[in-house]
């Protein structure tokens, strides 16, 4: 295989880690990014948005902490517990966050959604009843070009308070006059 400079190198290494509860042994190149390895292993929910840690689309939880997988070498994940967006739902049962994102129209193109849900999950795991400011802070590392963030913030707050899906056209965060 070829290294980053296109020079013929045969160096590979074994990586042992847990992804979404399943223990994995993967053969990787030492310089590979966690993002690239996860996508190669078909965790396509981990998105390539900037490869510079600026957009948050590739966020995963590493031992419960949100990390941009484009800023982490795969080798650094040795022995770690990784959660990707594919592992957030419990089998066929969606996480309350995912339900809330759907019910609040917080998903538009969906490209940034996985990363947002991942960070929101980390927030709610540690802080079950966050303020709107805390939610916005948790989502601050996730650029979204579609929603203006209002509905994702609403969704996270709703998931936190386990409110029922809102009634038609009622809004908790912004006031809507109709």
């Amino acid at each position, binding site marked *: 295989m070829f290294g980053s400079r*296109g020079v013929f190198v045969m160096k590979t290494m074994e990586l042992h880690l847990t992804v979404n509860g399943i223990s994995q042994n993967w053969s990787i190149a030492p310089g590979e990014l966690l993002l690239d390895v996860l996508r*190669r292993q078909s965790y396509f929910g981990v*998105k*390539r948005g900037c490869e510079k840690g600026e957009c948050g689309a590739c966020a995963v939880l590493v031992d419960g902490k949100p990390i941009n997988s484009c800023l982490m070498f795969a080798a650094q994940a040795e022995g770690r517990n990784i959660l990707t967006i594919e592992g957030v739902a419990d089998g066929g049962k969606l996480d309350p966050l995912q339900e809330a994102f759907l019910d609040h129209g917080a*998903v538009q193109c969906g490209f940034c959604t996985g990363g947002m849900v991942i960070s929101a999950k980390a927030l709610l795991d540690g802080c079950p009843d966050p303020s709107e400011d805390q939610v916005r802070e948790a989502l601050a590392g996730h650029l979204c*070009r579609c*929603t*203006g963030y209002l509905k994702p913030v609403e969704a996270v707050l709703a998931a936190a308070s386990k409110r029922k899906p809102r009634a038609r056209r009622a809004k908790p965060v912004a*006031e809507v006059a*109709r």
Partner: protein
Amino acid sequence: MSRDRLVVGHNVRKVDGVKLVTGGAAFTDDVQIPGMLYGKILPSPHAHARIRRIDTTKAKALPGVHAVLTYKDVPRVPHTTAGQAWPEPSPYDTYLLDSKVRFVGDRVAAVAAESRAIAERALGLVEVEYEILPAVLDMEQAMVEGVAVIHDEPDSTKIYDREHNIAGYILREIGSVEQGFRESDYIIEREFRTSRQQHAPLEPHVTISWLDADGRLVIRTSTQVPYHCRRQVAMILQIPVSRVHVIKPRIGGGFGGKQEMLLEDICGALALATRRPVKMEFTREEEFYMARSRHPQRLRMKMGVKRDGTVLASQLTVLATTGAYGSHSTTVQGNTGSKVLPLYRAPHMRFECHVVYTNTPVAGAFRGYGCPQGFFAQETLVDEIACELGMDPLEFHRKNVIRLGDTDLLSAQLGEGKEGLPRLVRSCGLPRCMESAALAIGWAQKRKSFPNGHTHLRRGVGMACTMQGSGIAGVDWASAFLKINEDGSFFLQVGASDVGAGADTVLSQIAAETLGVSLDKIIITSGDTDITPFDVGAYASSTTIISGGAVNKAAGKVRAQVLALASKMLDAPVEQLDCGNNEVFTTCACRKSVKMSDLAMQAMYKEKFQIMDGASHFNTDSPPPFCATFAEVEVDTETGQVRVLHLATAVDPGTAINPMQAEGQVEGAVAQGLGFALTEELVLDANGAPVNPNFLDYKIFGAQDMPKLTTILVETDEPLGPYGAKSISEVPINGPAPAIANAIFHAVGIRIRKLPIRPEDVLRALHAERPANLEEELLTR
């Protein structure tokens, strides 16, 4: 229809939502094809140069490299990358690869290799000798006699005046502005400038191309325009349209940037050259300068009014640059006039525009399509006029804006690169938009007195009114096809392209409503040129009204087939039948009904008949959605920092088929409009190279940066739209910039006429323009 709507007008979940929220493999790049190569473009390091010598020997010799293409290896077919209906109004001035490069980032060569690393390495091994030509970077210099001619190639076509770098020129006049200004009591003229905003979709452009088992070229791509893409790629690669299959999976945002054939041609060429699957994707950096942007403009606007505030004449003169290629050049700029000036009922209007080439990144379609620039000028100018006349800007708007029953004649003169069609306002919620958004921001109180005490933080409120279109009149058209399945569900096939805004959901809602079935009974397939019927694609705010119109028609025809069979089964006349809740029932007292699934079984296995039909749809008018944007800002007079505290946006989209999604369109557009107003600008250095092609230096608003948003849907019933719908996705992007600029004036008494409004601009203006007594005046307000 007499019964209450069961699906349309309801906040249903996105039909594609679950796979998006669970990280399902839904996007272009979410596949692994065995043997797939990685394609990469060698970008020009020079703004303007001729390739004197290009040698690919070393690059080709690198192990793992499968193809290196230069202009010598590909057909030379002048074309436009603009994904527009044929014949495209944009100049044919672009080539798959050329011996001349016209901006930093232009294509020099393309490689396909076994990995990204090898491809990148191969790019460095392509030896190129450039003859560097003088570059035209400043649009104001582009038409000057003697400057470099950017398109001196003889075979490009539809360029207005290549010797002077003019891609397109527009001049239209209604009435006589000269007369209008003569009759005016008060005339004001100002100059405005707007920036090179980039779409920055979270998913950069990506294309995967391969030859299928029959040798047909398959292109899986992040596009808003699968059908235009198929036609253009076939033409450029000189293969029949029937040999190209374009697939549009889920798209990670488009905003106009993907109404453009950007990677598909070169990726297809590499797939043909290597006979292997090839993937090409822009890095984030490449997306910033190798993809497209909003056209930067210089606008001179002049308006004449009577003493009572009645607008008599408006004149807009624009200089815009399209960058190195004329993608969407005349059409975007045409909109700057045709969709902006008619907001006011002036009898005299004149619009003139030069669109010039420069050796800069290429501009193209971008949400708003010329209107954000035009409305920034017009609405800021109108605010100034109102203030000069001592009128409340809201009152000025009430007096002058277009009304129900008005005909906009400028649109008749200015269509899609040619003459258009007159626009009749058949639905208009603008007065209600203004009143409700004014109320939300607290206009009446805040305009009069603000609690601006002895502090460096000053607050102000400002407003703007805007409009847009719903599809291109007489040009945009769409088709849809429906067929029933044994379980009473329906396959819906549309050429329309959901790019994330929720078209698949809205179109499914329309079909479900008309057929009287629940939303889960509609299985939609969209944007696959082998499977779905034609649609121009996702642009010009056309999908809900045009594609939705086609779906509604097709569903109406299928509904007629359903009712005809039900009539037989229930022994009741069709006039006494209705569909709803997945069954067909009699509306008379007898209360007979048949389940849609039983009816489907009857049709398929007893009648031996597939219930199915399709329909095409277009409009000869483009009903305008309306919008009122109100902003409250806080200006720090010590730093020049402008903080937006609250943006209230009221939009008239006709009927909101899915109000929750409609609100989402407003909020997303407002966020982009906010960036256009305050932060977003792709900056070029003295050599035309991008200075800030990344998210750290090109600031788009994040969750913590957003002001309070208030979204108000003011629904009307548009006769030309399915279930009364018009459009919503574009119009709200126009308002934030002028509303914020006007709020800044209200707060600190300075007029900023250049976007983005940076703190240093505000501070400079505060120091330069502040009259001696302003401080006092502000304190007493």
